């Protein structure tokens, strides 16, 4: 341990009378009153019991008051978010790959053409932002139902749980936050009473701008609109993408993207390079997750006594952790580039063909999917006219 704050040197001396320099604690340890407040526990074969004492020389000055400002570190709460806990959290969070392809059981969505799935993803991004609130919540329910129907139980529970939590937090924060502060402080015009105008008459149909009041917080119609848009958009984007990734291989997605991007190649867009980069990224993401988890587990398995480390030493361990991750990732990148060279890749994506398996779609699934897509888009358009 490299402590730079103060240096202790322990040396046996002949018996000395008790001095104020050594504050004897009840636990039998010697508590130095210097910047490092932790007691130095004596070994079982204590020097004191053998008639000798340890004398520690401090390099810092002491005001002699004991328990003063220099002991502030001791008062900091410990164990609230320990370094060990943080590393374990990191290791656990990166243990389950995010939205990886689930090959079995093969479902209806596995058979849908990936190009149609990409159109679906686009629609799920646009519709919640542009359609009626009922349509937004309808889309959320539709996606949730589809996930439960299509995916294995543990997969949909994991995915829906995370996305619902995130969307829920967004909904509450934006619902109460977007219009929560009384507009008086923002208003640039005087209230109607000051200019002699009558107040706006109350609605006969029961309309009220304020939906709910929770103490100082107000849930208004504006808040509802903002919150529902943001939360539904978040839900549909995340869950739609998850659903797509779990039922489509990366190569199928790449082939669909390539199909859509092909016209851009006529104007000089490096489509082949983009597709290869996408595939390498999809492979590399998992390597990064593996490295983050492995190095975190490596540190946890060393069973470091974090309580004995100073703040600087703990930070030093975390910096070493990050440095190690980057080093390993760069090594991976170098090795993979070597592997690509040895496997015949010469840097020209147009000359090196990437085998993107032809889609395993069937006509019926595609037709049904397209019909559903058109139905939802139609309903969204009509909802603007029919629902006030």
């Amino acid at each position, binding site marked *: 341990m490299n402590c730079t704050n103060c240096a202790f040197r322990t040396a046996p001396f002949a018996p000395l009378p008790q001095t104020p320099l050594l504050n004897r604690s009840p636990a039998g340890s010697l508590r130095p009153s210097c910047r490092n407040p932790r007691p130095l526990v004596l070994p079982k074969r204590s020097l004191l019991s053998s008639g000798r004492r340890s004398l520690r020389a401090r390099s810092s000055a002491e005001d002699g008051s004991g328990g003063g400002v220099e002991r502030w570190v001791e008062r900091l709460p410990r164990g609230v978010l320990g370094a060990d806990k943080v590393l374990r959290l990191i290791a656990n969070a990166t243990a389950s*790959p995010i939205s*990886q*392809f689930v*090959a079995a059981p093969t479902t209806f969505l596995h058979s849908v053409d990936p190009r149609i799935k990409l159109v679906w993803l686009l629609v799920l991004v646009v519709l919640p932002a542009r359609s009626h609130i009922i349509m937004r919540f309808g889309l959320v329910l539709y996606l949730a139902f589809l996930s439960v129907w299509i995916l294995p139980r543990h997969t949909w529970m994991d995915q829906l749980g995370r996305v619902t939590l995130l969307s829920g937090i967004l909904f509450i924060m934006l619902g109460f936050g977007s219009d929560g502060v009384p507009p008086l402080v923002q208003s640039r015009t005087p209230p109607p009473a000051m200019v002699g105008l009558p107040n706006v008459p109350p609605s006969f149909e029961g309309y009220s701008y304020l939906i709910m009041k929770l103490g100082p917080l107000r849930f208004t119609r504006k808040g509802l609109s903002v919150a529902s848009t943001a939360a539904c958009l978040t839900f549909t984007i995340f869950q739609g993408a998850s659903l797509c990734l779990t039922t489509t*291989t*990366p*190569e199928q997605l790449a082939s669909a993207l390539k199909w859509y991007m092909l016209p851009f190649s006529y104007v000089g867009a490096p489509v082949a390079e983009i597709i290869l980069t996408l*595939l*390498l990224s*999809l*492979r590399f993401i*998992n*390597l990064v*997750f*593996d490295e983050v988890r492995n190095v975190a587990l490596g540190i946890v398995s060393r069973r470091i006594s974090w309580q004995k480390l100073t703040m600087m030493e703990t930070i030093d361990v975390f910096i070493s952790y990050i440095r190690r991750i980057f080093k390993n990732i760069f090594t*991976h990148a170098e*090795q*993979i580039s*070597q*592997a*690509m*060279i*040895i*496997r*015949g*890749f*010469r840097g020209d994506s147009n*000359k*090196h*063909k*990437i*085998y*993107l*398996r*032809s889609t395993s779609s069937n006509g019926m699934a595609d037709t049904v999917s397209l019909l559903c897509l058109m139905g939802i888009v139609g309903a969204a358009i009509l909802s603007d006219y029919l629902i006030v």
Partner: protein
Amino acid sequence: MNLLAPLRPSPARPSSLIRSNPLSRPAHRKCELFSSAFLQTRRVLVSARDDFAIEARHVNFSVPTRQGAPVSILKDCSVSIPAGQLWMLLGPNGCGKSTLLKILAGLLAPTGGKVYVRRPRSFVFQNPDHQVVMPTVEADVAFGLGKSNLTQEEVRSKVFQALDAVGMSDYMQRPIQTLSGGQKQRVAIAGALAEACKVLLLDELTTFLDETDQIGVIKAVKNSLDKSEEVTALWVTHRLEELEYADGAIYMEDGKVISYGDPARITDFIKDKQAAYINDMNC
């Protein structure tokens, strides 16, 4: 036993006439290839290369330290491996086996000596995560075929055959990150087999495998050699039991080739060393 047994005699020819690896050849030596001496003896060389798929003559490799002083990794290594055979390269950790293999693969340039390896050649890394570049099994095995002008059906057929040879044909659509270390290693080998290379350079393939998978992988490599007489494999390993499947073996120590030849002889040599080491420990 003579530890410094002479290397197996190679066909008589001047070592300077062996063509070096273009990747490792210094530019100023290119003219050597077209010298009159080379042209006169070219016919001899061609027949010699028909005998050996891999040749390294007096190969040296060193890396500079921060102070600039060179640290020698390989010291005057010479090996000649006949075509159509499976040879194994053994030795303690840090003796230079993987470095020699990378030089043969063209990934490193030797600081001295000559190297000749038949083409196309393929290299399989010790860690399959370094070898597998695509997100799913099928696409990764097909990656090496991208340089050939094959139809989708041909690619699919070759990929299936290669995966079948290593017992992974049921995993074609599986994402790589869902596979175990041994399964990834098999996918990496399938990638090398699918390319139908003339030379396979395999770096400690069985490190992550259990005994069953280990034998399965060796047999898969052996099968690919049996199918074509042109395929040659050099296999780096630490496991003595794998020598049973080898046609020849090389033992290295401290950057030098110490012993070279029949697998039984190498096995005896290593067992003698182990016995001597145990005796030293007990004394």
